[in-house]
């Protein structure tokens, strides 16, 4: 399934509906709904926040290939933003030292099995894979 969404935080509602439809269509376990909604929200809101002047929609693709779920977010005419190269946050820090930045990407890394990044012709593409339990 493939769909483009307006670069706006208000698109989240229709994005969640899109994910729910994908889960239903493939009769996937409902525990995956939470995971997919969270990882897509984190990456989509990053694209909205850090590239807010870009007039292009953001494309989201959801696929099931054998025992893998594949999520692709594509940002057109964008600067590179390679999340695989972002430093890990330290989750053992004390309350006073904890910062909000990087938390979303940290959660994505925890919840998915593989993260790939492609940047070509000013198109920025994040590819997430989750292995399904057999």
């Amino acid at each position: 399934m493939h769909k483009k969404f307006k670069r706006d935080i208000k698109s989240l509602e229709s994005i969640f509906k899109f994910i729910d439809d994908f889960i239903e269509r493939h009769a996937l376990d409902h525990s995956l709904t939470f995971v997919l909604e969270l990882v897509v929200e984190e990456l989509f809101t990053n694209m909205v926040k850090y590239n807010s002047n870009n007039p292009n929609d953001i494309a989201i693709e959801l696929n099931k290939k054998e025992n893998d779920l594949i999520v692709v977010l594509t940002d057109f005419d964008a600067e590179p933003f390679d999340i695989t190269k972002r430093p890990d946050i330290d989750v053992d820090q004390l309350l006073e030292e904890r910062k909000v930045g990087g938390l979303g990407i940290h959660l994505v890394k925890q919840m998915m099995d593989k993260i790939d990044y492609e940047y070509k012709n000013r198109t920025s593409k994040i590819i997430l894979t989750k292995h399904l339990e057999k």
Partner: protein
Amino acid sequence: MFDVKIDSKGEVQLFGRFDASQVEKAKAVFDSLEKSCTVNFKELEYISSAGLSVLLATQKRLNESDQKLKLINLNKYIGDVFRYAGFDTIFEIE
């Protein structure tokens, strides 16, 4: 749909889905807290890092006057998110 309310016992009640589009609504309530209080997650289905940020900012602010939030009734998925974020060590969770 997301909602946040303070009930008659002074407990914060969260409802529905706390995503990035709901931050302002949540902040309006959490910014008003001045003393230790319980946050009830019983009716909350979903939270992302945007929601965690509001809770973290509140805990930091309250901590300066030795006050804190206690979180109760987290569902399994939300509990997992708190653990992945390392928030299980900076909040009292019941």
